């Protein structure tokens, strides 16, 4: 028997109902119920649909996680839950359920930051986090560069997107190309057989004049518009669009900017370890490009396996376990769900 804390984590910030169970750095269960199919016909996540699905999935997903982990709820040492940022109504379902678990089990409750959880999850795969490390979180909801000294205490935002999130750009371009929602995996697949230098799409905020004010920020809305213009121009001229080439060239532009800025930030701050998380971190080109370019500069890159990159309960449990181990104070029962919880607040 281990004396590492057994922590259950709940994540409901968007359309996935995630319940994870970890013992210290060991992943025991990662149950996820997704309502993504219900959103597909709307072309994006509908908050009310997501919230309804969370209510229905909550208890069954908790049960499934316990079964997979082979533990009884009574054995749980602490409950962690995403308290923000995210969709307000969706967050609230998870937070209320976590409070009920806390009351019903008589165990402490930790309301944690979703972004910090994306960072902490890598411990389940690659062990303790290097301190400091530079985290790049890229998903449909966020695109941020963060300096992480101690993930249980605070996270320093270095830069973020000034318009669309990286994942959002994938979704919008997929829609343009007639690929299904969510766009990330479909673009990745289509790009595999395409030519990534076929079309020279713009790299946002990389011009010299942008680097003064937005050195570590991202912008993807210009890229999205450029793809749209290109597609419409081809259609106007009656040329069949080579979806694979467009997907590959678009993906190359996104990954190029992300990787360049992450490496620049790491070098600027003298950090030797980069950690990539969030749904877009599942992108095969991003993983390959970041690893290759970092190696050339003597910087190490850690990316959790794709299943741990997307939103899940395990990442929340992983951060919870670290909070317990480091003796951080738990949250109060009047913990609010905060849709815009700042990244500097790790525990609310």
């Amino acid at each position, binding site marked *: 028997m281990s004396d590492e804390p057994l922590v259950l984590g709940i994540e409901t910030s968007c359309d996935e109902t995630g319940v994870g169970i970890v013992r210290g750095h060991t992943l025991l269960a990662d149950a996820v119920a997704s309502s993504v199919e219900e959103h597909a016909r709307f072309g994006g996540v509908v908050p009310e649909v997501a*919230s309804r699905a969370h209510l229905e999935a909550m208890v069954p997903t908790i049960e499934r996680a316990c079964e997979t982990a082979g533990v009884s709820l009574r054995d749980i040492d602490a409950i962690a839950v995403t308290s923000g940022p995210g969709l307000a109504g969706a967050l609230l379902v998870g937070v209320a359920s976590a409070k009920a678990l806390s009351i019903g089990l008589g165990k402490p409750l930790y309301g944690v930051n979703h972004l910090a959880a994306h960072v902490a999850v890598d411990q389940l795969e690659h062990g303790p986090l290097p301190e400091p490390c530079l985290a790049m979180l890229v998903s449909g909801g966020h695109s941020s560069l963060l300096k992480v000294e101690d993930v249980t205490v605070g996270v320093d935002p270095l830069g973020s997107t000034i318009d669309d999130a990286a994942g959002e750009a994938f979704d919008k371009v997929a829609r343009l190309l007639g690929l299904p929602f969510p766009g990330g995996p479909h673009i990745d697949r289509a790009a595999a057989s395409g030519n990534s230098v076929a079309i020279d799409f713009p790299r946002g905020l990389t011009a010299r004049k942008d680097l003064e004010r937005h050195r570590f920020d991202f912008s993807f809305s210009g890229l999205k518009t450029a793809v749209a213009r290109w597609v419409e121009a081809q259609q106007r001229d009656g040329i069949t669009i080579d979806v694979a080439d467009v997907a590959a060239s678009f993906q190359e532009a996104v990954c190029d900017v992300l990787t360049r800025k992450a490496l620049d930030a790491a070098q600027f701050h003298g950090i030797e370890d980069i950690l990539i998380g969030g749904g877009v971190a599942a992108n095969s080109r991003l993983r390959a490009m970041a690893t290759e370019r970092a190696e050339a500069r003597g910087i190490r890159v850690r990316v959790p396996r794709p299943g741990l990159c997307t939103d899940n309960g395990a990442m929340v449990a992983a951060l919870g376990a670290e909070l317990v181990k480091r003796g951080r104070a738990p949250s109060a029962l009047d913990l609010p769900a905060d849709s815009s919880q700042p990244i500097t607040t790790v525990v609310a």
Partner: protein
Amino acid sequence: MLLSFDTATSLVTAALHDGQDVVDERLSERPMKHGEHLAPLIEALLTDNGLVRQDLTAIAVGVGPGPFTGLRVGLVTARTLAHVLEIPVYGVCTLDVVAIEAIDTGAVTGDFLVATDARRKEVYLAAYDDRGRRTDGPVVARPADLASDLPVAGEGALLYPEHFPRGVAPTRPSAGWLARVVAEERAELLDPEPLYLRRPDAVVSGPRKPVLPPA
């Protein structure tokens, strides 16, 4: 010990019932803070009455209709707590709870209505007979379309006196009465499923729209 709560209106109400009668009842102070107030109210009810969580034997929860966000806080709390404590959970239509209180306190004697605030200038409404049995509803609609001279319990009469001129008490559901309704099986006991009555606001996306700004 039966724990009851309802989050289908702007406030949270929570109570304990020992099988004989209500032993304690609480009401949250600020509106639209269901997520923040429910758990502390439950904890306070237990602590202040010298109880531990293992003393709870059943949960009663109002299943609405009511504004969705708050409603879900009550339902997910009831379901999770019942699951972890391995005790039964009973749902009751929130309007039925208001109706039984109106009957038992003598506020109404014949047929009457219960109407609560559904926001967006609409009400949730159901009709009851002189014994508090629901005869119609619940529905969600504009007050003008449901206007009635019958006595009306619930906040609906306070908000729309022009359509419901005969407002009577109570104006909001009480968890104490919810507990009595369940303990004495005075209304239909339901699964803890929300009575939304409205579909989610969402538009099915049509064929791809050009993302280009007009030239």
